[in-house]
């Protein structure tokens, strides 16, 4: 148990004991190797199970809506941005959430590790990190990698691993280890293709989409009570999982969450059929930054991107 973990447990317990929050949302050990699982509890004894490690993958802000009244939430930098974004969108009152900020060490991407060592995650014995080096013990061998090789792409482009918005920050702000360009390399690669090939690429990717909607369900920015795909009069897109409708669904989703998406990468991690969704959301983040200088979830007092305007902006494409 590390320092942050023990501090977190104490603070979380106190919050519940003092009745400041109705529930704590954090991470507990998962049932599989190298996983954690969301812990959502009002029971103070449960706080002893809270953990902080390089596998705290979920964006926990997605659970805030489930809890009535004030809630204490363990937040990485990206989670906190999602919380801020929810506040901007009037989905949440600042006083209803107690942010237990943690300087995020970066989350290890198990798909990357699997690829690097050529083994599935459950065949790996251990993954340990020492600053910028990561050691993967597999098949009686220790393989060493640089942290940038195994961190999630969204972590590589992270500019503030520790939340800027918090009630309590557990530990010091982290040094940014990221490599923004590396994290966007797939986007650059796609951009270098002719349009028809780009379309072909996404057509192929969405051919295997099974419409499980995990991307939407894990996304804190997807908070609509009824998603457009569920409307039947009119029926905007067919419920059948054709690539065309899968692609329309996802493209619309990405546009709808523009200015709310904090590039937490959870949609991509959740996708059971490996569609590189972050290459869509990440591009959208670039677009809103380039056009409007906007970064989602960085200023809780700012109006949401799509409700604001500057009289003279983005006029060049209009006749």
């Amino acid at each position, binding site marked *: 148990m590390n320092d942050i973990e023990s501090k977190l447990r104490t603070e979380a317990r106190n919050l519940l004991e003092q009745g400041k929050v109705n529930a704590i949302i954090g991470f507990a050990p998962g049932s599989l190797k190298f*996983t954690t*699982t969301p812990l959502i509890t009002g029971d103070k004894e449960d706080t002893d199970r809270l953990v902080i490690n390089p596998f705290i993958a979920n964006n926990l802000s997605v*659970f805030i809506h489930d809890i009535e009244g004030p809630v204490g939430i363990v937040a990485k930098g990206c989670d906190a941005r999602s919380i801020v974004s929810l506040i901007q969108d009037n989905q949440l009152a600042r006083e209803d959430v107690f942010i237990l900020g943690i300087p995020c060490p970066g989350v290890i991407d198990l798909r990357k590790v699997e690829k690097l060592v050529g083994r599935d995650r459950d065949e790996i014995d251990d993954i340990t990190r020492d600053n910028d080096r990561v050691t993967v013990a597999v098949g009686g061998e220790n393989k060493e990698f640089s942290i940038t090789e195994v961190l999630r792409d969204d972590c590589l482009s992270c500019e503030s691993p520790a939340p800027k918005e918090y009630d309590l920050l557990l530990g010091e702000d982290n040094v940014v280890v990221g490599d923004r360009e590396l994290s966007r390399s797939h986007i650059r690669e796609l951009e270098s293709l002719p349009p028809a090939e780009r379309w072909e690429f996404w057509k192929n990717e969405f051919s295997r989409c099974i419409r499980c909607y995990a991307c939407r369900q894990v996304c804190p920015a997807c908070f609509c009570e009824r998603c457009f795909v569920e409307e039947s009069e009119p029926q905007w897109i067919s419920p059948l999982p054709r690539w065309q409708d899968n692609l329309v669904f996802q493209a619309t989703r990405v546009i709808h969450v523009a200015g709310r998406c904090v590039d937490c990468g959870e949609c991509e991690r959740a996708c059971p059929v490996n569609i590189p969704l972050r290459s869509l959301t990440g591009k959208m983040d670039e677009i809103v930054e380039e056009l409007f200088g906007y970064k989602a979830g960085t200023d809780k007092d700012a109006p949401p991107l799509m409700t604001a305007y500057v009289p003279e902006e983005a006029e060049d494409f209009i006749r």
Partner: protein
Amino acid sequence: MYRRKRKILSGDNMKKIKKKDIGKLLSKWQADFTVFTPSRATGVARMEEWDGKDTDFLTWYRNTVIPPKNNILPNMEAMFRFQKDEAGYQLEPVTPEQKQIIFGIRPCDARALTIIDMVFKDTYEDRYYLTRRQNTVLVGLGCTNPYESCFCTSLGIHPAQSADVDLMLTDIGNELLIEEITDKGKELLGKSSGLTDASSNDEDSAKQSRETAYQKVTRKLDTTGIADKLQASFEDKDFWGKVAAKCVTCGICTFLCPTCYCFDINDEISKGSGARFRNWDSCSFSLYTKMPAENPREEKWQRVRQKVCHKYEFYPRLFDTIACTGCGRCIRFCPVNWDITQTLESVPEHSAV
């Protein structure tokens, strides 16, 4: 508990084949069947039409992400086409006629088909499912390396033995031992080439291989009295609320579940002609049971409860078997690590109803 009663043919007519000759065997079968094998060509592991050369799956394949139910109950299939002319609507049913082999199906997924057969045969026969089922030969391949999420042995399934397939293959090193399980399998074997007789040594190493696989399934679930326990806990909102708290109600666990068979029916039309389709649906979605004025499963704990109880309480009452084969996909692919074995182990003891 439900057990498949089928005679497994004894050892004296067992065959084997060299792994390097599998390609030839599949090519031979391709003359009469569409052959499906594990494939990652589309970017996700699933049973795909064999490309005529790649047998790499023999090294990487542990199990598919998309379960082979997709090849019998596809995630989307046309049921009939319709067209309107002067005489009115004309309907033309679509019948799945393709004869297919699913090569490499795991015992858990094969059992899953046996389990969902019961629904599709019950009261009204489902032509689409049953025709595909009839037209399919299952060639099982025993596991040698189960996942950490696997718990098939807790549900009476052997990771490397199966009576739910037509032919069963066991990895014995450089070769695969072949057992005939059904007449359909026997017939297919008759159309095969490159096989040699297996020796008693081969059978011993197959036995060894199976035993090792069995021992490797370490996740255990005690299912004793589970249906009664669930029934007694049905109204325990506290329990279900806790269990469901971290569920995000996506459709991964149900869509990737080899025994989840629920579907939706939808029409498509353009310029007067169209088709009726069915596609996978999931009890995780609130829309699944939504009626105009009410929804009996509006809350996510109700939907999680439905999923668990359907598999471990209702299905056993209806068909005398648990509708879960311990394939572990719902655990492995869950974005929040919701673990059905943990849920089932934590069902509280209530006094019986």
